[in-house]
């Protein structure tokens, strides 16, 4: 009798085991690896099913933008574990789907309606957003991604100037998971000093901060099997207002003092010799001041470099080195300040000068500036000087 009681007790207590409610086996999940967001063309708009709203458009929608979301899904059985056999085309391991909606969630809900598996965002690596959307307003896309707890904050958001769906379809021949390759491209760019660490989490912090404007990498599809980081998109508030070229990313990183260095720069000396100097360490010091109610900033950038290549000449020496350093300082002083002026014209404070002034002169900020809009006005005409101190520390294996 007692034994029976114990058995029944154990049977009943197994009802209290949890964890089962949220059980989704791997093959029951639609693992989304990459998303691309575009603005849909006019005639495509007809295909929005009424999943989250009734006939007649999205409630309270006055701007009527229709998004086209392209999702890349991993097909679980197709991804091989262990060493790669080769020959297999990577496009076959991922499934690219399209969905339309008036908001991100609307589009995802429409997508879910078409899928047998539950959409899972835990492996989302990269979100490509079309430049047109970023130039309008990026906050509407962000909200869903911030709220959804499955989305990693270390995933990347990138901007594309062509159709975003092109980028997500770039599939390298040797990689099993295409999106993984794309996000690895970005992660390794950070390690190589070619890209700031502006993944989701950091980007969102910069976006909402007062006196800081955010940046996002711009990527480009190359030959339909890889991507290239072709610059940075810089923001004013929630809108993208301009872009840089790849070398200007180096400038941004140098002013921010982010290491390791990675960009090389070509320089010519008086006698016609050409040198390629690669930066390997960058440091910067910000000095902000408010005098007579006028803010000013002085940025001292220190870059240490190495000579990587010498062409059309073969007589490198100590004196030559000093000449190159001198030339580099002049060149970078010029280009850094030019770029800075362009930023000022666009009122994009990506170097966080506003935040620094707010931090160090709270009284000035709270009396005179108060808002981000006012700061943009002041920032546009304020005095900012960048002084670059380029030092060459080595020249590789060659003496001359």
């Amino acid at each position: 009798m007692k034994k029976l009681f114990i058995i029944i007790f154990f049977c009943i207590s197994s009802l209290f085991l949890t964890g089962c409610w949220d059980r989704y086996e791997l093959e029951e999940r639609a693992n989304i690896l990459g998303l691309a967001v575009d603005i849909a063309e006019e005639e495509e708009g007809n295909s929005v099913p009424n999943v989250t709203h009734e006939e007649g458009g999205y409630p309270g929608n006055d701007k009527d933008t229709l998004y086209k979301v392209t999702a890349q899904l991993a097909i679980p059985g197709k991804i091989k574990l262990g060493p790669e056999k080769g020959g297999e085309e990577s496009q076959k391991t991922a499934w690219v789907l399209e969905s339309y909606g008036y908001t991100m969630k609307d589009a995802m809900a429409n997508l879910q309606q078409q899928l047998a598996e539950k959409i899972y965002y835990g492996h989302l690596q990269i979100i490509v957003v079309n430049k047109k959307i970023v130039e309008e307003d990026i906050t509407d896309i962000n909200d869903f991604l911030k709220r959804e707890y499955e989305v990693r904050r270390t995933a990347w958001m990138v901007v594309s100037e062509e159709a975003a769906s092109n980028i997500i379809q770039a599939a390298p021949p040797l990689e099993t998971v295409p999106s993984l390759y794309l996000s690895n491209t970005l992660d390794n760019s950070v390690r190589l000093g070619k890209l700031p660490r502006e993944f989701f989490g950091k980007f969102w912090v910069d976006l909402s901060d007062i006196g800081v404007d955010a940046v996002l990498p711009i990527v480009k599809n190359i030959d339909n099997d890889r991507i290239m980081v072709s610059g940075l998109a810089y923001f004013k508030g929630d809108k993208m207002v301009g872009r840089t070229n790849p070398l200007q990313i180096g400038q941004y990183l140098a002013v921010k003092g982010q290491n390791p260095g990675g960009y090389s720069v070509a320089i010519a000396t008086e006698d016609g010799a050409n040198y390629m100097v690669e930066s390997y360490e960058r440091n910067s010091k910000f000095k902000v001041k408010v005098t007579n109610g006028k803010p000013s900033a002085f940025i001292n950038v220190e870059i240490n470099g190495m000579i990587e290549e010498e062409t059309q000449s073969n007589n490198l020496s100590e004196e030559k080195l000093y000449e190159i350093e001198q030339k580099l300082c002049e060149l970078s002083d010029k280009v850094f300040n030019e770029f800075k002026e362009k930023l000022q014209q666009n009122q994009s404070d990506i170097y966080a000068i506003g935040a620094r002034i707010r931090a160090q002169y709270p009284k000035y900020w709270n009396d005179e500036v108060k808002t981000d809009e006012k700061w943009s006005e002041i920032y546009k005409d304020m005095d900012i000087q960048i002084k670059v101190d380029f030092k060459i520390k080595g020249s590789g294996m060659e003496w001359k």
Partner: protein
Amino acid sequence: MKHSDSISSIQFASIVTGTMVGISLLGLPRFVVQEVGNAAPIASLFGILCSLVGVVVVTMLGKKFPKQTIISYNKIVLGKFLGNFFNIILIVFFLLLMGLETRQFAEVMVGALLPSTPIQVSIFLIIFLCSVISFQNVSSFAFIHFFYLPLSIIPLFLVLIPSFRDIEIYHLLPIFGHNVSINDFLNGSLRIGQAISNFLVIAMIIPYMKNPNKSVKSGVWGFLLGGLIVFSLITITLGVFGEVTILEMFWPALVLGRMVQVPGEVLARIDAILIISWIFAVFTSLLSYFFFSVRGIAEMLNTEKHRVIKIIGFLAVFCIALIPQNIYEMYDYILKITTVGVLLIIPYPLLILMIAKLRKKKGDTI
């Protein structure tokens, strides 16, 4: 009172830390920053120092009455009627706190970990876990705290230390905030006091120490360790996110865990570790609340029937946890209840200590 328990100083300190480091940690930075903005680190330091007064007073009371718990010396100092009145307030406070904190725990579970699991199940299980542990014996309670403490604080530092490189100095300056009035500042410190007011549980434990005279020292050490964790968590979270972004989220510390990249990329996601260690911390805190309530009631009623009290307490806590309608309402209740908690940790023990001095009441010496 006769007992065979003996708790060492280190165990005592780990009870203080283990109770302090609990549920509120995930959301705490948000509530402090809401009041004081950039001044959050200073305000929390101030809050911690003020609460330290509470620890010293409570442990001094323990030294004065080395054989009685707060339940007994309340009656001695304030008289039977008034003493029992305050005892009921204390017990009700801990029961309410336990209910609401359990709910907070369950909200995090539903919001960030197990969205399809019914919230009642998470609540049921964690309270159930607390109530199957025997309170007959105080040393087993101390052992549990001692065992789980490293498990709950080491992963926390694993998240905090790699976050250092993402700190922006302009998020932390100016250290006194923008236009923070004295009132705001005190409110911010109050939030800290509210979060760590639960250390009062030590007033139930001091008589079971090997040497109650050491309680002041080890209590302060335990408190300082817990305070260090709270302070560094708030400072680092603020440094990484800044005052604007912190206010956008419910649990900044959890998001911090999701943003951290461990050097070498051994682990892609570290937030799972953070959550697991946080569950340990939740468990030890809730266990302390339940311990206080159950043993408090038993002592008031002069009975040893802990099991019956536990079942009733279990039901009460479960019901309390289900009262709030949504997460905003829950935080509303928590802020209200814990304000009472601050009164209970600083002014109230001071009052007792003064009255005890005036009335020349003293406990039995060993």
